[in-house]
């Protein structure tokens, strides 16, 4: 079992650009959640997807959007990037509300 996999591992974008991050959940998991972790902080919940629908959303602007595919994989899209969007983006998968397993994250740097 490969666990939760995220791609890419690192990327650098320019302010105003758009970015797409990808996540494949752990085998057997049907729920994917995304978190933003700024340097020196705990992860902050962005949103959660279940059955291809956004089930819950944290306090993030509409520039942050997502999608879940029929195979349960997920994408996080961020439009009009700001310098403050620089962070480690973590994907977590779970089977409904059981414990979440995290990927290694995508380090996004906005310059």
């Amino acid at each position, binding site marked *: 079992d490969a666990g939760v996999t995220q791609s890419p591992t690192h990327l650098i974008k320019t302010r105003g650009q758009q970015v797409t991050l990808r996540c494949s959940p752990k085998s057997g998991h049907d729920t994917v959640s995304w978190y933003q972790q700024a340097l020196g902080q705990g992860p902050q919940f962005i949103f*959660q997807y279940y059955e291809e629908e956004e089930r*819950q959303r*944290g306090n993030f602007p509409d520039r942050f959007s997502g999608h879940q595919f029929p195979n349960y994989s997920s994408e996080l899209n961020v439009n009009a990037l700001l310098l403050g969007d620089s962070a480690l983006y973590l994907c977590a998968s779970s089977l409904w509300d059981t414990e*979440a397993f995290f*990927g*290694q994250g995508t380090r996004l740097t906005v310059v």
Partner: protein
Amino acid sequence: AQSVTQPDIHITVSEGASLELRCNYSYGATPYLFWYVQSPGQGLQLLLKYFSGDTLVQGIKGFEAEFKRSQSSFNLRKPSVHWSDAAEYFCAGSQGNLIFGKGTKLSVKP
């Protein structure tokens, strides 16, 4: 508002000494509770979880945690710390999505 608090930002212990990391939660009802560990630049690894039942839960790597409803606490303990335990530790609560504390950085002195 729901919240998780880790009062200690940084703790240093000597190798072989015991460890206790503090965590308090504020929820309307008792949430599921978790401890995760994170090495620099890495994702989060689940150490242990509490859903219900026995208030002393055992986890991986020799860690345990005790749930105390009266104190709204879920403190993490380890009897003897190893140098490889140096990392950032996060407590989290969940009623659907995880709410994390700000983390406690553990340093281990030789």
